[in-house]
């Protein structure tokens, strides 16, 4: 399509970058770590610099078709070094070069915190999530979570119910939702708020669920990088949530752990993270005074 001066402008073609990203991911050995290494070694290059133009086009066409077939009418992408790519994502150990989104990208620029936790929460944990989210919304924070069952779902729902804003960073491509029962919530967030995915559409469709599960913890690292702080409501000793906790500390984000986690004698992780800098939260004020120090106590 372009007749002239791509070479004399500093410009990217989003569709070509998307196709190139998908092509890189189509190789079975590709991981977020291997991709991040590639771009660390060649910081001036784009996905399209590693992939032949026809190959990028091949994958762009396939993926556009897959998105259309799944009912995604409008979506956008963000590419490192092009407009609107959030610099804060570079704080991740293996930052994403490209991501997909639906909805209001602008929400990425709001002050936001991640509220996350187990997929099998206690009734009290769900109640705590709702209360916490109401208070955070009241302080104008955007609530970010991963659209998983349990705490994530409670966090998104509470944010919407409280009239707040919410962002879902999902572990599936835009073409899928997991769990299935959250499809409606995902659609609502995509229309009214913001839905973000770093998961390659083609690769996901070509491998089984066991390998695709690996995308969930990857999105937790991105979620942490996207936010100022991560708050853990409830999580088991082997929960994927702890991946995000580690990422948050590594990325120099604040990490809050609700007090009830400390009171469970079978868990050692709350104490481990506290010793590494996490804040034990006995009341909302513990979060508030750390995030909004310039505001008077309630």
């Amino acid at each position, binding site marked *: 399509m372009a007749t002239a001066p791509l070479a004399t402008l*500093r*410009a990217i073609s989003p569709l070509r970058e998307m196709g190139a990203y998908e092509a890189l991911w189509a190789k079975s050995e590709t991981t977020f770590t291997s991709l991040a290494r590639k771009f660390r070694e060649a910081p001036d290059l784009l996905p399209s610099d590693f992939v032949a133009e026809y190959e990028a086009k091949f994958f762009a066409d396939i993926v556009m078709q897959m998105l259309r077939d799944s009912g995604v009418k*409008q979506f956008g992408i963000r590419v490192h070094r092009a407009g609107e790519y959030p610099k804060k994502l570079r704080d991740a150990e293996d930052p994403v070069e490209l991501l997909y989104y639906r909805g209001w990208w602008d929400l990425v620029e709001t002050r936001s915190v991640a509220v996350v936790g187990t997929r099998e929460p206690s009734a009290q944990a769900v109640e705590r999530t709702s209360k916490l989210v109401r208070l955070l919304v009241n302080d104008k924070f955007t609530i970010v979570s991963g659209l998983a069952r349990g705490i994530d779902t409670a966090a998104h729902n509470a944010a919407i119910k409280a009239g707040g804003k919410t962002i879902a960073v999902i572990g599936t491509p835009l073409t899928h939702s997991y769990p299935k029962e959250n499809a409606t919530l995902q659609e609502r967030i995509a229309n009214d708020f913001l839905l973000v995915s770093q998961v390659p559409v083609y690769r996901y469709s070509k491998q089984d669920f066991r390998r695709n599960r690996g995308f969930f913890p990857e999105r937790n690292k991105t979620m942490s990088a996207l936010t100022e702080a991560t708050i853990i409501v409830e999580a088991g000793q082997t929960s994927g949530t702890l991946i995000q906790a580690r990422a948050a500390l590594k990325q120099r984000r604040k990490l809050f752990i609700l007090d009830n986690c400390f009171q469970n004698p079978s868990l050692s992780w709350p104490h481990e993270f506290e010793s590494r800098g996490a804040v034990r939260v006995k009341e909302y004020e513990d979060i508030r005074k750390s995030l909004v120090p310039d505001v008077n106590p309630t």
Partner: protein
Amino acid sequence: MLTQLDALYLPHHWYLDAADECYFGGEYTAGQGYTYSETNQLILNLKKKMERRGLPDWGYKARAIRQAAMNLREYLRPQFLASATFVPIPPSKVVGDPEYDDRMTQVVQLLGENVDARELVCQIESTLEAHTAETRPGPRTLYNNYQIEESCITPTPSQIAVVDDVLTTGAHFKAMKRILGETYPDVPIVGIFIARRVPGTE
């Protein structure tokens, strides 16, 4: 870096087609959307009404004009800056109107002393601003209200870059491309925008 308006975003700017070569820097969420991003701040300040002149917030407009020029310089390689002719899309109000706002002319003039920036196209009559008009004018209406500034047509450019702050429907670019194409039939014309409007926002 600029983003090329390729097939992914082309459908959002419905007067444009695959033969139009357009580039944008960031994305602007207009009106009912959220407005937290740097790009939104830049565009809102750039579009600040002339009636604010002399008021405390006026300085933001001048700063936004400089910022827009700096952004453009960063997007364009020296070779392009040296060889292209930069043509601002004319403002909706003509000279003499109290709301006459030559912000885009100022932006292209700040691109550098040796940069060829020319107001090659002007409007015959003032129109309502596109983003407040009830019905947006199409390319034909805009074209009919454009004229070439005869005093600036030489030398013939080798490459034209039509520059505007926000790409919305693409109607202005289309009208500019048509009138400039009539004067310079063999000169390639591209559109360069500080931002494109996010689809679904007015």
